[in-house]
């Protein structure tokens, strides 16, 4: 959020907008790695490069495919549970909430828009919102949708671009220097504020902010 990085003005017009744009497709299409995850037990011939797990979510949406759900569950449920426990849930609550999150994935499958998010990102937002409900007993205000609303059938080119960028993002994240990656993970999972990170790691606050920003910048460059 711009407002969280600036002290007095929200009007800073940074050049960040491009990061979720759908650029750089043509260059990428020639060298996509087939993601190791997903798309194994579902017929995906009609969209071979749609991105990890998109075909499984689609299978749930179109034909309530339990095999696809099982594959998603095996991959994501243990990660969601780890996320919830790092956010402060005990094992029992994390288990229960994970089941809730995965059930929500089923009941909301028809709302997943692969042109806007990867499956991992979508599940992350569901888990985050459930964790706010369950752990903090708070409401989670969500922004209103864009005036033009979701497309009935997302444009395949947008889907391809977004899903490829996500794959690229995952790779960029894994290639970050260890120190930066750890801090990013803690900011997301540890439910730590920057000052709490400072208290826990003994790093001065300024360093942490700049390291997180540096890491995000690096990710942006990797995406550029």
């Amino acid at each position, binding site marked *: 959020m711009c407002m969280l990085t600036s002290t007095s003005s929200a009007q800073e017009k940074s050049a960040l907008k491009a990061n979720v744009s759908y650029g750089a497709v043509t260059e990428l299409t020639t060298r996509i790695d087939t993601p190791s995850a997903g798309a194994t037990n579902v017929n995906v011939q009609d969209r071979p490069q749609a991105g990890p797990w998109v075909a499984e979510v689609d299978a749930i949406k179109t034909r309530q495919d339990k095999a696809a759900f099982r594959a998603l569950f095996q991959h994501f449920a243990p990660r969601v549970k780890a996320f919830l426990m790092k956010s402060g849930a005990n094992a029992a609550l994390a288990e229960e909430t994970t089941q809730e999150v995965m059930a929500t994935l089923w009941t909301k499958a028809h709302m997943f828009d692969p042109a806007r998010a990867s499956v991992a990102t979508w599940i992350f937002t569901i888990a985050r919102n459930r964790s706010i409900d369950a752990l903090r007993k708070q409401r*989670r*205000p969500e922004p209103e949708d864009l005036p033009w609303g979701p497309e009935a059938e997302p444009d395949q080119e947008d889907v391809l671009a977004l899903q490829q960028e996500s794959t690229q993002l995952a790779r960029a994240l894994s290639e970050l220097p260890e120190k930066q990656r750890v801090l990013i*993970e803690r900011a997301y999972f540890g439910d730590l504020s920057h000052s709490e990170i400072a208290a826990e790691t003994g790093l001065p606050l300024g360093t942490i902010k700049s390291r997180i920003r540096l890491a995000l910048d690096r990710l942006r460059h990797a995406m550029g």
Partner: protein
Amino acid sequence: MGYAAGTLPEAFNLVVATHVSLCDECRARLMEFEAVGGAVLDDAAEVELSEGALEATLKLISSRAKDPIKTVWAQTGVFPKPLQDYVGGDLSAVTWRRMGGGVKQAVLPTSKDASVRLLFIPAGAEMPDHGHAGTELTLVLQGAFLDDGDRFARGDIEVANQELEHTPIADIGEDCICLTATDAPLRFSGVVPRLAQKIFRI
């Protein structure tokens, strides 16, 4: 980023969600931060689920109906949708409390770690000079205000922290309505506002 990660107090989340409804640039950044969150999740360590967790989840699913498609359409009104949800309607639904000098406020119910209120400042009026013990986010919904040479209009957010002592003034053109979240009481420089502070819980 705190909003994307889900680590902010509810009051701040409301201001951010309302702002993102008005600012495409920040919407893009929010999606960017969420994308990073997704990548981090995918990359993360795993914690085994209990035996039978999948079956339990499938059972949970069979007991539920499919969620209806809810599109949160942009509203025509002064308040974006997330704020309307808290107020229970648009501007006309607000129950204002007078604070003197034509200034009015309405505190919205959120979790106690921070507070959020709507402020109504008549065109040209000024807020008492104050500093902050914590962070204050102010989002303009109608009109504009001037603060030390900067002008903030609809959709703009001012972030104030410990270092800033300020006297925002509503722009002359129109009454100014803001959504303001704070995680600590304000520090007023004058005695009268300090007394009023006790009464108005700011």
